[in-house]
């Protein structure tokens, strides 16, 4: 197990090295020295700022040397860079954004898991029934609906239409911290949660249904049935456990991607999480922030993937061999 862990972590580190190289090439490898300095300085930067950036980031040295400085800063000083636009370290900005993205991601994940797995199981168990058709149809619908369209439609229907009639349950856009006012926080999160959750719930419904149907068709399930075990028990004791494995691995991947994948929802609802911060940083040409966010988001994917693999390895020792 320790060996497996080490190997898996080593692979993760390799991926992260490649990610930083890629990020570095995108931002530092394209364009002249001055271009790069200007880009990093943000909009309306002074000549001095540009000169100091060139000096601080060693932009006058060779690309590999620059990359080396970049990595040294990142690894030894945990320094993600400095936003000249905000005159703040990037890590501070990201530190503010992370709780917002996390509360969005975790809440949405809970919702889509419950909705997706329950509807998937129901549809599989009552395969061919009206319920099955309804859930399958709904899943196809939400699966096809782009997140930003869903978000705007929810805002329009559930917020504005109600607000117009004087009913204000959900705030429109914006975000309230959970510590400042938990109730307001909850209210402000409901629409974003569902926006983010419904598309994924559709995916999970399809995944659960397909995998449960496959498992239910297998021999040992037929044996369990033939032995006269009650159908509920067959499904829940024998079927569900093995059919949920793909769901869990998908969840790991999705949770990792969410840090970067909540961009659209955050933008629609004006929540200053990581994604929204990245998008606004483009308008402000605040590249150090984008670089920082990309690295943090990629890191979270890598970590999530390692966790999924560990989970698998604990469940099924054979996995460790590969």
């Amino acid at each position, binding site marked *: 197990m320790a060996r497996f862990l080490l190997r898996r972590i080593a692979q993760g580190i390799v991926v992260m090295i490649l990610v930083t190289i890629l990020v570095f090439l995108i931002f530092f490898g394209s364009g002249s020295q001055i271009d790069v300095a200007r880009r990093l300085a943000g909009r309306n930067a002074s000549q001095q700022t540009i000169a100091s950036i060139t000096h601080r980031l060693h932009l006058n040295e060779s690309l590999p040397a620059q990359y080396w400085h970049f990595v040294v800063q990142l690894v030894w000083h945990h320094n993600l860079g400095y936003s000249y636009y905000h005159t703040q370290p990037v890590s501070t900005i990201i530190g503010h954004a992370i709780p917002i993205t996390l509360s969005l991601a975790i809440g949405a994940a809970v919702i889509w898991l419950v909705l997706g797995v329950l509807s998937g199981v129901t549809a599989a168990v009552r395969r061919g029934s009206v319920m099955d058709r309804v859930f399958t149809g709904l899943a196809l619908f939400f699966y096809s609906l*782009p997140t930003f*369209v869903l978000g705007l439609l929810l805002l329009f229907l559930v917020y504005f239409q109600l607000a117009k009639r004087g009913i204000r349950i959900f705030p429109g856009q914006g975000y309230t911290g959970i510590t400042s006012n938990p109730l307001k926080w909850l209210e402000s999160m409901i629409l974003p949660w569902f926006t983010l959750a419904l598309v994924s719930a559709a995916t999970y419904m399809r995944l659960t249904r397909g995998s449960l149907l496959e498992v239910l068709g297998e021999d040992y399930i037929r044996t369990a049935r033939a032995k006269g075990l009650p159908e509920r028990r067959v499904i829940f004791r024998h079927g569900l456990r093995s059919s949920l494995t793909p769901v869990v691995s998908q969840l790991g991947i999705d949770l990792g991607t969410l840090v970067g994948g909540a961009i659209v929802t955050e933008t629609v609802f004006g929540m200053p999480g990581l*994604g929204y911060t990245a998008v606004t940083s*483009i308008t402000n040409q605040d590249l150090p922030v984008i670089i920082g966010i*990309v690295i943090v988001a990629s890191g979270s*994917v890598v970590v999530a993937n390692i966790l999924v693999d560990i989970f698998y390895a604990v469940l099924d020792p054979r996995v460790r061999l590969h």
Partner: protein
Amino acid sequence: MTIPSAIESHTELAIEPGVAAERAIEGRSTWQLAWMRLRKDKAAVVSFVVIVLIVLMAIFAPVVASLTGHGVDQQFRTTGLNGFGQPVGPNGTFLLGTDDLGRDILVRIAYGARISLLVGVVATLIMVAIGTVLGLMAGYLGGIVDSIIARLIDLVLSLPFLLFAISLVSVTHPGLAVVIIVIAVFNWAAVARIVRGQVLSIREKEYIEAARSLGAGPLRIMFVDVLPNVLTQLIVYATLLIPVTIVLEATLSFLGLGIPPPTADWGQMIAESEGVYQQAWWFLVFPGLALLVTTLSFNILGDGVRDALDPRLERR
């Protein structure tokens, strides 16, 4: 194994006539049979028709423009905006209403279909091409080639797509080509992984060894012998990738990273509707509907194609 049972295996292995006949029917025309099955799938047929209509709308977008008499970028400041400078709703002149600049939404949706379909199809083709070639190489050549490509697949799969798209677009200039390339470059890995998996099992087949024994080189084996055997999977996958790609393009445009204005584009129209749609629902709903109908049709068709090509999975 005892010797007598080795002899029995003679007869065990002999193919019964019934089975042979069944295989013959199955093999006679995978495509014809799939087509027959697909035609019986009502939902798939309807979605196919809808897709054809959308394609026609895209091709004949200029005709839509000339029929209505409204150019795609033409701003109707007097007829298309009301007294407060707000968009007008669906009426006899503007069938689907106007946008915040007084442009005809119907005409812009027709033109927007061109971008969606173009990006959807072209980016998917590039993705499938890259994924197929790398997947074939990884699966068939194995060894170090496989290790490198497998790492590359892992890498690309762990990149947060939208963030990288933002990064790339932020150092280049948004545009059609950039959008297509960004989508393709960050999304081929899933195709490659599927192809690789398929090839790993196909390469153990005896007909691959037969080809090697004839002197066929790896390139020929990969493309002449292996590729046809992953084709059905690829077709299903490509059909299901088109809607994903269309959504990605619309999302990029929605975030202001896609096709720059004033080109008509669904995602961008929806972005422009923000702040206005409270008073002008049609500005949000019709482009959103266009997007939804398109992706839904492709998804239904994709499911239908999969069931038709692979009846084992049929209607589970």
